[in-house]
């Protein structure tokens, strides 16, 4: 148990309530989160290509969702923002 954890003595009924408090997140969400390392690599490749190819850059800026889908990356909000920030040359927080 980690330092700072406080698991109070409890009966089995209370344990049941605590187990019920953590249902699994939807499988698709978990799968997307697990694919982040691969997605990040692909995002970097999109940015690299956009920096070398003005036509591609315009396509990415105009329609980032399609660019992400073409690269087999889930086009959720955060990935689109990452692409926009990197192409804008803004420092990410």
């Amino acid at each position, binding site marked *: *148990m*980690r*330092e700072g*954890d*406080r*698991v*109070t*003595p*409890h*009966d*089995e009924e209370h*344990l*049941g309530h*605590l*187990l*019920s*408090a*953590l*249902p*699994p*997140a*939807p499988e698709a*969400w*978990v799968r*997307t*989160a*697990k694919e*982040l*390392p*691969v997605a*990040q690599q692909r995002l970097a490749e999109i940015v690299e290509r956009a920096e070398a190819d003005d036509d591609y850059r315009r396509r990415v800026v105009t329609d980032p969702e399609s660019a992400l889908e073409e690269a087999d990356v*889930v086009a*959720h*909000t*955060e*990935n689109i923002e*990452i692409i926009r920030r990197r192409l804008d040359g803004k420092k*990410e927080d």
Partner: protein
Amino acid sequence: METSVEAMGLYVDLSDGQLVARCRAGDHEAWNELVDRFSRYVYAIAVQAFKLPEHDAEDVFQEVFTRAYEHLHKLRDDDAIRPWLAQLTRRLCIDRLRAGVQEQPEDLVEPTDVDDTITRLDEALAVHEALAILPDGCQDILDRFFARDESYRTISEALDLPTGTIASRISRCLVKLRVELEGRSSHSSAS
């Protein structure tokens, strides 16, 4: 012969700090374990503490893990990943709520019982970790019944067990879980 974490399949046994260090080193399997370890927690904060609708909760969920992946190097104490994720999730949930309610002070946006709910989820996560120590059969049946809300019949079919034995198995596994937690508590207070 090299004894690696990969070879022994011990990611689940790594401490949070060890896991974070391996993620930072680019170990994808460690990242998978980190997501497995905290996905329920992040999801529960978004949905239970902040009561976000599913589509908002999904955006927050993905943003939390994306930022965690990108900013792991900023973590001052690798063992503090859980409170760091909780704080990150909380901040992103508040941002999401504020986006829907213009110019509201933060304390008017955040549900009043968030602290209590997160405290309960912290305790639930510790119980969930203790569950991982129990034999596979106990992990599976308790998770199915309590966390996945499956019926006796569904569990019986999935695990190929007589329906009439499910209740007693759950009861025995809960006792094992309580004993495991009591052992951890006494070890924790003795150290």
